[in-house]
């Protein structure tokens, strides 16, 4: 509609989710723009960025202003689910696009789906499904779920319970802890006392880290219980160290050390940022490149035109092979079951995961048949 492509990057730049996406995600976005030469078909690419402070009103206000005043075409980043929900409403009202790579809630492409956003990297369903499936196959039947007591934790708990029960497992106990919590010893003790074979951590960020650390102090694994993290990010493992996290099974949408392509990109990123990218940061890059390609191909920045093109085109880049965007806005790609290395195995600071196997995209994500998305029913 005008002679510039305008991209807004909205994320938590200073709070809990800073390391997951934050300034690093912005850097990934810049890399994508640079790789495009700073312009598409002669139209300059202009970036805006803002800190949402994890507050929905701040995020919504920023995006509204971007759209009203700066005529921003697409919003990327997007981490805290409450912020994303608020932003999605506005993006939908104004008929723009949102490319979500941080938020985990699978509801975004389920009951809250809209024709104006695409969910790129992972969601609660895929993460819990992947890990639970693998652990169940290894014979862990009795589960204890430690869930964060808010929408995200509840979603994770529900998705997880479904998988466990579908595959013949049993949830023998669960506890919902307040978000955030300072001390997890009580919950870990309850998990220990439950007699479950597997303790699932259906929480994220600081809470997950804290719970994991406590579990290791109370010798959960020594007493024969297995730990399964549902939402574990590279930055969590890195900051906790291998001593605490070793052996943890997790599902990831991407890992920097998978193949030459990923390594090459990750090294470039590392040079600029000084850290290895998380999957969310890689997702920002990937989704932006895909978006810009679609703009280039259609020579339009109309959200629906571009979206159709994005759906049409499979994603083949360092992030995903044969990734596909579905009608409900879910970008379906392969996920990976990983295990955290032992300190002895690890050869460098960021050498943290063993990739055990690939979970094909169709298996990893909720199938459209189960979807409540209004775009699908019609």
């Amino acid at each position, binding site marked *: 509609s005008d002679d510039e492509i305008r991209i807004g990057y909205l994320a938590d730049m200073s709070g809990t989710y800073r*390391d997951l996406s934050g300034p690093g995600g912005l850097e990934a976005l810049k890399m994508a723009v640079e790789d495009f030469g700073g312009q598409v078909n002669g139209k300059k690419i202009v970036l805006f960025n803002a800190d949402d402070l994890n507050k929905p009103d701040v995020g919504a206000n920023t995006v509204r202003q971007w759209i009203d005043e700066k005529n921003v075409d697409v919003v990327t980043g997007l981490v805290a689910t409450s912020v994303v929900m608020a932003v999605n409403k506005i993006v939908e009202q104004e008929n723009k696009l949102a490319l979500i790579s941080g938020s985990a809630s699978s509801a975004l492409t389920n009951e809250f789906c809209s024709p104006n956003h695409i969910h790129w990297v992972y969601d609660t369903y895929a993460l819990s499904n992947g890990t639970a499936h693998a652990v169940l196959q290894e014979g862990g039947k009795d589960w204890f779920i430690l869930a964060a007591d808010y929408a995200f934790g509840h979603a994770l708990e529900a998705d997880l319970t479904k998988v466990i029960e579908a595959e013949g497992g049993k949830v023998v106990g669960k506890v919902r802890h307040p978000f955030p919590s300072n001390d997890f010893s009580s919950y870990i003790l309850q998990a220990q006392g439950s007699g479950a074979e597997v303790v699932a951590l259906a929480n994220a960020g600081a809470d997950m880290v804290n719970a994991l650390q406590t579990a290791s102090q109370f010798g959960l694994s020594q007493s024969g219980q297995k730990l399964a993290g549902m939402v574990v990010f590279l930055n969590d493992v890195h900051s906790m160290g291998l001593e605490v996290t070793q052996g943890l099974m997790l599902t990831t949408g991407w890992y920097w050390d998978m193949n030459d392509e990923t390594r090459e990109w990750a090294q470039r990123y590392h040079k600029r940022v000084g850290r290895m990218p998380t999957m969310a940061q890689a997702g920002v890059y990937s989704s932006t490149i895909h978006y810009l390609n679609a703009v280039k191909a259609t020579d339009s920045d109309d959200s629906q035109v571009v979206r159709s093109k994005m759906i049409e085109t499979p994603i083949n880049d360092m992030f995903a092979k044969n990734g596909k965007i579905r009608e409900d806005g879910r970008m379906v790609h392969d996920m990976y079951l990983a295990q955290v290395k032992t300190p002895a195995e690890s050869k460098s600071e960021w050498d943290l995961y063993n990739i055990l196997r690939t979970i094909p995209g169709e298996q990893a994500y909720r199938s459209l048949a189960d979807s409540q998305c209004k775009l699908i029913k019609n």
Partner: protein
Amino acid sequence: MTILFGVPLSVLLGQLLLGLINGAFYALLSLGLAIIFGLLRIINFAHGALYMLGAFVTLLSLQYLGVNYWFALFLAPLTVGLIGMLIEKYLLRRITGEDHLYGLLLTFGLALIIEGLFVKLFGVSGSSYPMPDALKGGFNLGFMFLPKYRAWVIVAALIVCFVTWYMIERTRLGSYLRAGTENPKLMQAFGINVPLLITLTYGYGAALAAFAGVLAAPIYPVSPGMGANLLIVVFAVVVIGGMGSIMGAIVTGLLMGLIEGLTKVFYPEAANTVVFLVMVLVLLVRPAGLFGKET
């Protein structure tokens, strides 16, 4: 096995013990807060940041100086205590005699600055501090597995708390402190160096927070935000105990740990809220808190 309200007694015992250990942290932190409030009449919003500093000094002195845990146990409170003294001497001193709200605003600003800088320098994820070798492993108490370190926490915290209590309530120094709160000018006229007393007190309060920080380092993720969440609960503890009451801060700290522990078993969703419920109830019945003197 005895069952109590649907929970085996042994589990309950374990939970109570864990609650007590958490309570020891509350006690240490609220003690420092109560002392600072007592003498400076300042609601020290920087207390959480000082606690965090204590943990970070421990972590960084290991990473960069190779200082071990036992040494950090002294080094961190000393360093943070000194920082506290500087804060008092160069900032808080300039607002003595003003409305106490300004102390709140100032310390809140300080907390924002300190925490913001640490986020910038170290990120938010937090790091873990290796467990000191001597305290690895644990005891099997029959009804639960008690990590050695947690046992050490409660012993260390209680000793420090009671030594502090004795100093303040049972020695001459303590009566200087209490009187200095009320009328510093007159105390000067009795020959007491009140400015020094105040600086040392704030420093000591800061050192207590840092001591709690050292104790926390091996069991909780060391992150810039670690103190901010705790702070508000610790305020509640001080108020329930009765502002200015040293014994109140200690006992209430332990008590709140226990109550929170029980809540985590019976209604975990409310674990963060129960302290405030208790606070409302206590203040309705005893307006000056459990141990506070009504004026």
